[in-house]
Every structure is written in C-alpha cells, then in structure tokens.
C-alpha cells in the first residue's frame, strides 16, 4: 500500500457533494474505470457477468456496469476500485481483449434527483443537446457540454452519471452546479 495520498479530481481529500433542492451532485472517485476493446474479429467477453450492451446503451450489474463507447468498445466501471489496479483485475476476467486503465482519465459526477426524472431532464436541457426522452434508464451517450466532451449514463430515471476528462473536473462541477442551482436553488 503506497504512502502517497491521493486527491480527487476536484483536488480534495474526500469526494465532494452538493445539494440543490431536489438535485444532488456527488463526485465518485471510488469508481474504477477501464476501457475494453475487442481485438479484430474477437467476440465479446462477459466480464463480471455483464452482457456488453449495443450502441447508445448501458448495463448495470450487481458488481459492475458497462456502457458502449464505440464499435466493439466499452467502458467498464466498478465502484470501490478507485485506487486499485482495476485494469489488471479486468484483464483477468476478460482475456484476449485490449484493456486500458481509465480510472484517472475521467471523473465521474453522479447526479441524483429526489423528485424523479423531471429534474434530471430539466438539468439536461440546460447542459446538453440530447433529448432526455431518448436518454432513459439504460441509455448512454457521448456528447458536448460547455466545450467539454462527456459521457452521459442514465442509470435510472432519477440518476444520471456525467463523466468527463479528469482535467476538466472543476469546469464540469461548475457547469453542473450553476445549472442545478438555477433550476432548484
């Protein structure tokens, strides 16, 4: 166990959380991320029992989740693996594919609503040019948000994960919190 102390993408010792009316924002530094791409002509594995989803979709298993990021490419995520070597762990359960560590390549911001999906939809309308009706539970997409590229993963009606490049963490937190505050504050 290293004696170096990690910080979150927002530069804090612990995950940042904020509440704006019915909307809650939470940084999820504990999520381990790795990209999985099939070798040419290879068949899709089922890491952690996940049936890797088709375009625009996400699957959520008990331990892990996956969302489609491109032809024969997915992002696999597991909570509680933020500081572990998640790519190595994934390699063990998914041999014969190309796996790249992405845990610190991105920052995962979880948006949850205490008042159902409408608040999430309203927040999306202020941030991304994606039809909320087309991003229901189990859907995922990549889009632009304030000049940043983000993944949006709709885990349920009342939960949306916004995943951006780690270096943009503060800019994304700012954009999310300003929009949430204007809607709910």
């Amino acid at each position, binding site marked *: 166990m290293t004696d170096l102390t990690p910080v979150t993408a927002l*530069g804090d010792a612990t995950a940042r959380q904020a509440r704006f009316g019915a909307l809650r924002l939470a940084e999820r530094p504990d999520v381990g991320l790795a990209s999985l791409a099939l070798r*040419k002509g290879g068949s899709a594995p089922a890491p952690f029992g996940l049936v890797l989803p088709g375009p625009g979709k996400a699957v959520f298993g008990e331990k892990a989740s996956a969302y489609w990021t491109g032809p024969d490419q997915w992002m696999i995520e597991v909570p509680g693996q933020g*500081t572990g070597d998640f790519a190595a762990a994934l390699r063990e359960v998914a041999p014969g594919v190309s796996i790249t*560590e*992405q845990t*610190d390549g991105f920052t995962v911001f979880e948006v949850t609503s205490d008042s159902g999906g409408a608040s999430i939809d309203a927040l999306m309308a202020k941030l991304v*040019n994606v039809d909320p*009706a087309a991003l229901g539970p189990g859907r995922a997409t990549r889009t632009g948000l304030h000049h940043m590229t983000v993944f949006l993963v709709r885990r349920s009606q009342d939960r949306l994960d916004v995943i951006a*490049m780690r270096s943009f963490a503060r800019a994304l937190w700012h954009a999310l919190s300003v929009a949430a505050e204007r809607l709910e504050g």
Partner: protein
Amino acid sequence: MTRLTGGLIDRDTPLDFTFNGRSYTGFAGDTLASALMANGVDLVGRSFKYHRPRGVFAAGSEEPNALVTLREGARAEPNTRATVAELYAGLTARSQNHVGTLERDLLAVNDLLSPMFAAGFYYKTFMWPRAFWEKLYEPAIRRAAGLGALSLEPDPDAYDKGFLHCDLLVIGAGAAGLAAALTAGRAGARVILADEDFRPGGRLLSESDLLDEAPASDWVAAVHAELAALPNVRIMPRTTVFGVYDHGIYGAVERVADHLPTPGDGVRQTLWRITAKRAVLAAGAIERHIPFADNDRPGILLAGAMRAYANRWATLPGRAGAPVAVFTNGDDGHRTALDLRAKGVPLLGVVDTREHAQAFGDYEVFRGATVTGTRGRRGVTAIEITRGGKAKWHDVGALAVAGGWNPNVHLASHHRGRPVWNPDLLAFVPGADGPRGLFPAGAAAGQGGTGAALADGVRAATAALADIGVTAPEVTLPAATDFASAQAAFWHVPGKRRAWVDFQNDVTVKDITLAHNENMRSVEHLKRWTTLGMATDQGKTANISALAVMAEITGRTIPETGTTVFRPPYTGVSLSVLGGGDTGKHFRPERLTPTHDWAAAQGATFTEVGAWLRAQMFPRAGEDHWRTTVDREARAVRSAVGICDVTTLGKIDVQGTDAAEFLNRVYANMMATLKVGRVRYGLMLREDGHLYDDGTCARLGEDHFVVTTTTANAGPVYRNMEFAHQCLWPELDVQMISTTDAWAQIAVAGPKSRTLLERIVDDTDLSNEAFPFMACAELTICDGLRARLFRISFSGELAYELAVPARYGAALMARLMEAGEDLGVTPYGTEALGVLRIEKGHATGAEITGQTTASMLGLGKMVSVKKDSIGAVMSRREGLAAEARRLVGLKPVGDDAPIPAGSHLFIKGASRTLETDQGWVTSACYSPGVGSHIALGYLEHGDTRMGEVIVAANPLEGQEMAVEVVSPHFVDPEGVRLRD
C-alpha cells in the same frame, strides 16, 4: 388619464413607473407603450435623421418609432421597443436621440435641413477631405443621427442557454397557433408553444370578435388551461423564435426576467436551441400603412394597433374627447371604427380610398378620399382630407391607418425561401421553398380571418403530425366569423410633401424616387442606398410599401420587384444571451494538471496552453524579474535536478496484434523494430509531406505501445490515427484510446535525477546498464504504487519521465521535493522548459509549423525509405526535397542582446526582399548555460555555414542585428549527458 372601459389589464394592480424622470402609473398587463398612452404621453421619441417628434405606431415587435432606453446604469438597454416592454413596478425609461429635452430637441433643426439629408446623403457628402472622416464626420453623424447609447458598463446579469426537443414547435400563440397546439397536444405529441408576448392569444386579445358568442379571451384562457395541464406540452411565453437553422433547429430567446426590475439570483434571458421534428409558423401578420404627407406625427397609428390599444389595453392616443379618424384602402380599417364606436369614442369617420366603400355601422365614410396632410407639433391635431380634388381640414385627436396586412413570412423565408405574391390578398405569402418541416398557418399563411386562422391552425398541425406518423384527433373549434376583407391596391398618396415609408430610418417616398433616379434599381441596392428596412425593426412596417412604391416608379409589378433576403434574427437578440451566459473565467473550460494546486501553493504563475493551464515558472521571494526565476530553474536542471509536470503531452494507448505495423505506417521512421521496454523518438508527417508532430513511442509489450504527442496536437494526432485506422487500414487489428488525463507525468531532469528517482522506486535497478537512455518500464514506487518510467530527455540532461495515476500526481510532486531537498531539486515551468530545449536544439511547435520538413530539422534521414508511411512519398517530391533551409543556432555578435523571434535572416549587406530572404528565427531566449542570448532558426544551407555572420532583421520594428551561425545544439552537442 385616457382609459376606456374593459381591457385585459388588472386595474387592481397599479404599477408606478417613470419616463424621462416623470412618474406615472399603469396597470399589470400594460406595456410601457400602453401605459404611456393611458397617461396621455404620445410623444415618446425623435426620429433617426430629422429628429421629428414620434409616437407609438404599432402594438407589437414591429414597432419602428417608440424606442426607449429601459432601466438605468449598467442595466440600461437602448432601443427597447416600448410596445413589447412589459410594465413592472419601478420601471424607468428614457427617450433617445435628442439634444436637450424630448419636447425641445435642439437637433430638430435637421428637419429644416432635410433637403440635404436625402437618400445616399452620407455616401455623397462626406467624400472630401478623406482625412476628416474618422475624426470629424463620423463622430458628428453618429451623434446627430442614431438610436440609443450603450452604458459601456459590464452587463451585471446572468444569461443562460439550453436545448429543447419536440415533435412540433408552434411559433405564435394566436388563433392559428393555439388551434395547432391544441390539435398536437391532444394527439399526444410533444409540443412547444412559443410566443413573444407575455400573454397568449395574439390578435384574439386585440379584436372584439366573439368565439362561441363569448369574448375570445375566454376561449384563449380555456385552451391555455388545457394545454398547461398536458404533460406533453411546454408553453413558453415571452419567447421569440428568431431563426430557422439546418435540420429542424430553431433559435429562440426566452426573456425570463425582462419583466422584473432585476433578475435577482436568476437569469435575465435564456437562449434556447430547439430541435423540432416539425414546426407550425403561426406568427400572424403585420399591418402596413399608407404613406401620405406628414404621416409620421404622434397619434397616427396602424389601425390594428389602435384596436389593440382600445380593446386589450383600454386606451387611445390623442387628446381625450377629440374625434378619431380612420384612413383605409379596404374593409379591415372599418373594424377600428366599429370597435372605437363600441367603446364610445367619438369618430370623425372613415376615409376610404374606394369610390364605392360602404359603412359597416353608424359612422361617416369619406368615399374615394385620401388623407393629404396633417398638422400638430407634438401630435396630430388635424388632418386634410382630399376628395375629388377638394381638400378640407378636420380636427382630430388621432388617426388610424389601415393599408392591408402582410403575412409574417420572415421565418418561412429563411434558408433563402422566397415569399410568393398573392394578387388576391395583395400580399406576399410564404413560398414553397422555405425551410423544410415548417408549416405556415393562419395569418402568416394569408388566412387572417379569425375563423380561417383557427381552421388553418388545425390543418397545419394535422399535416405536420401526419408527416411524422402521428394521427391528429378531430378538434372542435369555436364558432367564429371572418370580417369582410375586400381591399384596393392603394399603396401611397402621391404628393409633393414628404410621405414617410420607413419611420425608423426616416425614408420617404421621395427618397425612394431619388434612389431610383440615381440608378439604384435592385431592391437590395435601394435598401443600402436609402437604409430602408435596416436598423432595429428591419422595416417590418415599411418593406412591402416601399416595394410597391418602387414597383410603381419602375413600372414593374411588386413580385417582379421582389423582396430583400430575410435573415435571422427576426427581432434583435442581445449579444449577452447569444454568448450563452459563459463569461470571464468560465467562457471556456480550463484543463488543470494533476499538480495544479501544488504548483499554485508554491506560488507558480500559469500560462494557457490550449485549454490547459500550465505552471509557467515558480518565482521565489526576492526574485523581482522573471528572468531571474527562469535562469535559476534552468541552471538547477543543468547542475542538479529539476521536476516539471508534463501531463499535458498527449498519451495514446495503442494495442493490438497489428499495433506495430500500424505505427510503422503512422510514423515516418521505423517503429516496428522497437524492442519491448524501449522508447523511440518519432516523427509524423502530414499527407503533403511536411512535418506534422513529434513525440515518443514506448513499447510496453509485444502488442502494447504508448504514443506521446505534443500538447497542442494531442487531440488532432489521436483523431488522425483514428481516421487512419477506421478509413485507411480497417483491416489492421489495432485498438487505441487516449490516456492523457489518466496519468500524471512528471519530468525529472538533471545530473542528479537518477539519484532522486532511486530514492522512491521500489526494487528497480536504474543504473545506466539496467535502465539505459530510451528505456521504459512499468514498475512501482513509494511502496507499491504502479507507475511507468521512461528515460527520455527534452532538456538534453540525464532525464526521466515518471507517470503515476493522476490522483497521486500532487503527492508525487511533493514527495520528489522532499526526497530531493539535499540534491537541490527545483520545480521548473514552461519558460525554463523552453530555455532548456532551445539550448539543446530540440524542436517544438515553433519549428514544426506545418510548413517545415524533416530535412529542415536535420532529421531527413528519419523518413524511412524501407517502408511506406503517411506523407513519406510526398516528402520526396520535387521542390520539397530541394528545400535547403536547415535548423541552425544563432548567437549575437558583439554586445549581447535579445534576438527577436520571427526575424528574417539575410546575408550581410544584402537588400531586404523576398528574393534575398534566407530564412527566419523560430525560437529565441536567454541561455544561462551559454551566458548570452541565443536563438534557433531555419537558414538556407545552414548546416554548411557554421561560423558565418549574418543579419537577423525585423523590418516591421526597424530591428536588425548581426548573428553568428552556430550548431543548434548549444549544450552537449555529442549527447553524452543524456546517455550518462
């Protein structure tokens, strides 16, 4: 107070406001225009050129005259149309474009000089002397002619943007729009109903027509309530759809807080980008006037506007009790007479241009007559009616003018849609070549009668929905009638006095005639020469009348004359809202390095590199010049050890059984032969053979590489590699993904770098034998943290780059500082980084500009001839291969002085021309290692001219200096140190 009975104002909610410093009271539901009118204020502004007294002319966003500056201080908003400014308690407004008071404008003298200010006046008058234009003429003209002035203070309010999606966007909430929205809403379609007014209803609120034998506002309220209760319908009042863009995208501005004194914590306006599968354009129609002599006085209004003020706002212009006259060329004007009569307003009668015009009620009709003149200094007090050549003056308090209605074809004419002339309606209607998916309906489509508009709204919505596979239900419409609408083609009253066509720009019938005489025959030329149809109202009440006048002069028909091109925005849109609300620091998101906070805590200054903020230098107390800091940092690297965050360099993870072959094709030099555990410097070429980017490629495994790129090209190189894979060689088994952000990468450079790293790596032999120059490894540091170590050098010293998961970057930096304290470890920024690489002769973006070649860098042999790669063939083409400029070092001769980067290089004594130009200085700095200023540059045959003294010249700033050509490797030219 001039208030009538009735109206849709809330008399229980009085609102105080001020105009030009005087206090007045209106009611909730008023606009500033209706409230001023109700307070007897008819003079509200001065005209653009002649400073003529002007009053409210229309009742909507087409208003040309009643422009005011709303609010004060930084929130002052010039050129706000009083007709759409919703009244709120505490509203303050000022009139514009006058010197002295509004009532006694000193510049009214311009009106007496009006013969001077004819069409094309500016173009003709201020030709000479030319030097006077900027200093004298333009400022004077801008002061004399114009609109309101900006506060020149920063906008204190927040703005916002957003994105909406729907099946059907309904633009306008009048009869047609409400019927369309109701149809689509009941069909279950996702509907957005946008209207620029604060109250839905459109003309239904302004006419006295009954729906199902009840006031139309009852039906409007019922429909509004039903739509508001439907979860699939979004009603957006105060929202102007200003443009139609590609692929069913509509631009709209929602005025969220313009009806409040300040937005408080909220936003003032929101810019909406609406993606609609289909849209119904129910934007209504705009009434036109009939130009006649002196037709611009306050108290002369469009007839429909007069009805709107009477019916909706219960007010009228002019002296209370004075009779009102109507001037019309058709039946529609008679509605104003009927409505005013119903309100008990005394009528002079209706002046109808038609010989056989009939009265629709108990009032006098002046048949076959025209208005040929008006009187009244600050408002009309009398009009001259001419019938059969006999003129007679009549006292009036106000005059309503009805010249017919122009369907609001603006949005339907975006995308170069051309409106089509309808000879029965005497108006342009939307053409068939307008934006796809936009269905005009109601008055906007020439179906202006109340019953016709309702039915047409249902028709348009039904057709639009059918287009996307939605079946509309039967909608029962309320019983309505269409008022008679016969009309004569009567466009203006001929005469010798000025008859205004475009009020906002002070363009008269005479100006149009003059423009024609001066050969401005195209309607587009007419517009530019006279400024007709320009400025804030874009000629909404003027354009068609002008076309008619022009057609008459030229002997062509109106459709032959044609319209000018319609472009967004439909009405003015503030730049603040177009900006989308991101200002200052948040205008563009910043990318921060993993050690950003650590660097900030050390007092670093930062510099922007693309979206990144990088530490520029780390000044210490007492260092009062940036050079002191940079020299110290650079010396520390040369003599001890320095550390620098280089995370921003692009990192692309490349895997797959064909990864080596793929990289061989992407890099100009051989990459497939790279051994596992080794790094190689690589060059990428553009398709045209020029240099594209450089970086390193590390082989972590047989089928696993990590490519690094320059910071600036991280995105483009990754994109190009994806393109090469997906489009050029899809047969290769390659997978790639960016990992730039995933790893914090720290350069550890200097003779003591190995000693420092040995103190933190776990059980890895870093000796020169075990880990030589260009080695790489995956290892652990600091008790088990996974890391990657690359022995590469940008500075020319013994150096490494150490990568750890980004969350540990700041801790690693602190640990290196702690562990290397006795070694003199020093953090360095991009400035010292630049000095070190210039001293070593290493290239960056200044040398790799897209116009330079590998040969120029002295790396021509790196472009392998044993294999093909992107750009390789083109790099050998004639001309490019003959390129003789080579990278050289440059040192001042004589006194040391900075060598200006960008200087061009010449033989001593040669003239300074393109022909004698021998190259240029790419990078320059002060070198603490050399002890003088140095530079890099490209010079013709530079590799064979060592020791020659040439001239670096910067003719732009009159600089020139003698410089000696030296090796570009000022430091350790044999490359001993980095291999040590």
